[in-house]
């Protein structure tokens, strides 16, 4: 029995009973929608259900039914679906009303939904949307595109869960929604594929199929962009089952293949930024300064692997296939695709097992660069994982300068260095360092030598420089164990590398604290070389340069140490003295902190000087002893 509030509905139903659709005025249609809305708001969905199921009201429903979708969505339950009578109403409406009108109804319903419940709405509407889309004969592609793009636009406003906890909770239901979307598209993908393969169809059908395919690809592209943001790693370490979003991702990759966008072809894109204008300028400047020794361009300014001929690149960074059925892919979507393939092993059975490891790295380098340059943690970590997988395929020391495009090689190292030295997020910084070391190990000796020189000349970050110097140490150790003096980390070539290391640009005025990582690593390297390669053997040739090193490096450090120590001692005294004048500074940065902390900072600076001095004293001792 309907309540008093439903009189409006009863009135309009009585007015229009048994009337065919054409005879119902727009005003009556509006009154019907308003009355239903009121009923739903008061929880009388049963009353609405009876109204729509009554065949006497079919004309009215045909006329205004599509307008009921938005009010129905407003009262949809959030979270898990409960039986509140909405589903049978939706079912009846999608059976009776015109599919074309319903598409607009769904569009409006999605558009009016709130961000916090949109995922649940989509999941509940999806089966009905697909049923309606499947019924459409004319301009199916347009309708599919309209609804799918509306879905993705709505999802854009939903926060993406990233941490393990957020992903487990999935408060907005985003993962559930993304998982439901892909399987639902199966019949449409099948339609786009079967029609395209069958040659007997008319031109109009072919056009419609192509349109449908384009819309589906558009959706896949946006979907991949979404996956790029979230983490696809297992929720807990050691968890055997992979993250649930991988299943729809696998399905999506298969769809792409089915629709003729073979993943293996998609990712074989030539260097995206062969040499971006800015990068070209930098390399040019660099060559001018250092006489072209460090950056040696391969043959035609690119990789010897050459460019893939199937795909063309555009100025805006999108890619497309040659002729008809053209579809432009954004770099970030392709980056996600290649990540899924190589890191999660999706569709790798479609990837020929004859491509060389170097080629795989070469193919992926532009995508890695794209991901490393983003600011979202999820994307950066994916870029690092992809690079890690590609590097791990290679044997140690197997990467030659000729095999990898020089612009990418240096670009990649620059991206990693930037990440390690200035990324505000800890996880990418740590992983960046691990991957950087993997990268160094994969380069052959010449490659390592060039990379080290390049980094030492270009990088101002003391930590990174210190890290490179430690690596030089490792390589020199290996080289000194060998018989010859002709390696890349021996004799003249090693000295070339040490020139910027055993040198203080600002002499005695160098800020020791700021450059401590670099100076400490350099002193350790010098000490190692002096002990390991004594004056009688002199394989590394360091003893030939010892006077220069003393003048340009050791003496300035000694002076800088004395100056700094005196300065900080005075500051410490002043800070600890009752009533003393405060205003300490570390380098040029004034310290604004409580006195206890200030004292701690100054003391740690002084102990660092002690450490530097002890290594310096040991080096001087070895030099004087052997002299």
């Amino acid at each position, binding site marked *: 029995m309907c309540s008093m509030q439903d009189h409006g509905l009863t009135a309009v139903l009585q007015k229009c009973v048994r009337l065919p659709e054409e005879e119902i005025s727009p005003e009556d249609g509006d009154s019907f929608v308003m009355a239903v809305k009121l009923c739903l708001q008061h929880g009388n969905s049963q009353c609405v259900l009876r109204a729509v199921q009554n065949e006497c009201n079919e004309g009215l429903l045909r006329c205004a039914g599509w307008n009921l979708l938005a009010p129905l969505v407003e009262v949809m339950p959030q979270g898990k679906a409960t039986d509140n009578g909405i589903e049978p109403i939706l079912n009846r409406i999608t059976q009776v009303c015109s599919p074309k009108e319903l598409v607009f109804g769904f569009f409006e319903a999605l558009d009016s939904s709130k961000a916090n419940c949109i995922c649940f709405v989509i999941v509940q509407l999806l089966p009905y949307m697909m049923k309606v889309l499947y019924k459409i004969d004319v301009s199916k592609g347009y309708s599919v595109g309209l609804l799918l793009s509306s879905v993705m636009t709505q999802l854009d406003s939903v926060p993406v869960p990233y941490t393990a906890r957020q992903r487990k909770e999935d408060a907005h239901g985003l993962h559930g929604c993304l998982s439901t979307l892909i399987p639902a598209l199966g019949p449409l993908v099948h339609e786009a594929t079967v029609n395209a393969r069958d040659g007997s169809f008319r031109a109009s059908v072919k056009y419609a199929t192509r349109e449908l395919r384009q819309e589906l690809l558009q959706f896949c592209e946006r979907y991949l962009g979404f996956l790029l943001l979230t983490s696809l790693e297992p929720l807990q370490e050691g968890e055997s089952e992979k993250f649930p979003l991988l299943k729809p991702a696998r399905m999506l990759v298969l769809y792409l293949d089915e629709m003729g966008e073979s993943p293996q072809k998609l990712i074989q894109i030539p260097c995206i930024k062969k040499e971006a204008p800015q990068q070209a300028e930098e390399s040019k400047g660099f060559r001018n300064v250092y006489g072209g020794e460090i950056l040696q361009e391969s043959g035609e300014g690119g990789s010897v692997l050459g460019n893939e001929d199937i795909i063309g690149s555009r100025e805006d960074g999108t890619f497309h296939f040659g002729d008809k059925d053209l579809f432009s892919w954004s770099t970030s979507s392709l980056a996600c695709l290649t990540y899924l393939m190589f890191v999660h092993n999706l569709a*790798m059975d479609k990837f*020929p097992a*004859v491509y060389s490891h170097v080629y795989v790295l070469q193919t992926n380098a532009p995508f890695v660069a794209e991901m490393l340059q983003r600011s979202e943690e999820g994307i950066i970590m994916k870029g690092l994982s992809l690079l890690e*997988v590609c590097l791990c*395929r*290679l044997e140690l020391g197997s990467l030659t300068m000729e095999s990898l495009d020089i612009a990418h090689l240096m670009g990649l190292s620059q991206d990693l260095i930037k990440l390690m030295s200035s990324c505000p997020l800890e996880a990418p910084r740590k992983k960046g360092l691990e991957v950087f070391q993997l990268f160094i190990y994969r380069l052959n000796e010449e490659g390592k030598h060039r990379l080290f020189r390049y980094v030492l000349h270009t990088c101002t970050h003391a930590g990174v420089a210190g890290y490179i110097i430690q690596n030089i140490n490792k390589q020199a150790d290996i080289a000194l164990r060998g018989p010859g003096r002709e390696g890349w980390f021996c004799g003249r070539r090693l000295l070339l590398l040490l020139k910027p290391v055993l040198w203080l640009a600002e002499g005695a005025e160098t800020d020791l604290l700021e450059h401590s990582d670099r100076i400490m690593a350099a002193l350790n390297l010098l000490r190692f070389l002096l002990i390991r390669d004594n004056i009688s053997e002199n394989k590394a040739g360091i003893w030939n340069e010892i006077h220069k090193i003393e003048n340009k490096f050791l003496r300035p450090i000694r002076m800088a140490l004395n100056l700094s120590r005196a300065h900080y001692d005075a500051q410490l005294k002043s800070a600890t003295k009752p009533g003393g004048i405060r205003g300490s500074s570390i380098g040029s940065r004034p310290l604004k902190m409580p006195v206890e902390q200030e004292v701690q900072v100054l003391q740690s600076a002084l102990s660092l000087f002690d450490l530097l001095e002890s290594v310096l004293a040991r080096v001087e001792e070895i030099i004087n002893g052997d002299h």
Partner: protein
Amino acid sequence: MRGWSENSHAISKDRSFPQTSMAAKKGPWSVQDLQGDRVSKKEIIQLLQQQASHQFLEEQKLLGSLKNVAKTSTKDHLVKSYELLLKNQKFKDDKAENVQSKPSKGVGKKPAADSKSTVATAAPPVVEEPPKYSKSVLKRGDKLSYPQRGDTVACWYKGMLEDGTVFDSNLPAGGRKGKSAKPLTFKVGVGKVIKGWDEALMTMSNGEKARLEIESEWAYGKKGLPDGKIPPNAKLIFEVELVSIE
């Protein structure tokens, strides 16, 4: 047609040099022959590619498929190269280069019928290390056009482990190469594929089908392929059919 000989009476159907190593070799045509229309560009290129050393061909920019060289070289250039070859005697060193699968034809000898799986161990140019693959021809190719470094080749293939496990193939399941199936295309000799393929493909002529046995060093080495697709240090066996060279 005159044969290549220092003796004018030595006639041969094949345009090849007699295998006398001491005397300087002469060519089958005079400069007058070449300057007229009697000898086509393609005939000159074919002869030069069969007989001249790799280095000479490289210097004269005559490496590549017959069609491409014919397009890019003028007749004058070819005549000059021909004269230069005779003048400087820059012939293929039979001992060093003849092991390339391109067979050189001896005087009066028919090419060896290799349709019955002749096993030939091929040594790549440039690389000094001994080849780490062996090739047996399953179906003879045209023996005229061989891919050169940088050419785009297309091939059907099936890759197996030593125990016969097929780890990859681009052959359609039904065995019929219909419209939807496409051969794998790539630039050969530039490191896009495993080294065994790069080197072996360049010894195959258009249409040839061969069985390649590639040592792991020239395949996926110590690492293999992830997920156990190819285990570490695995020797790989491929059946490859070269279907086009561009």
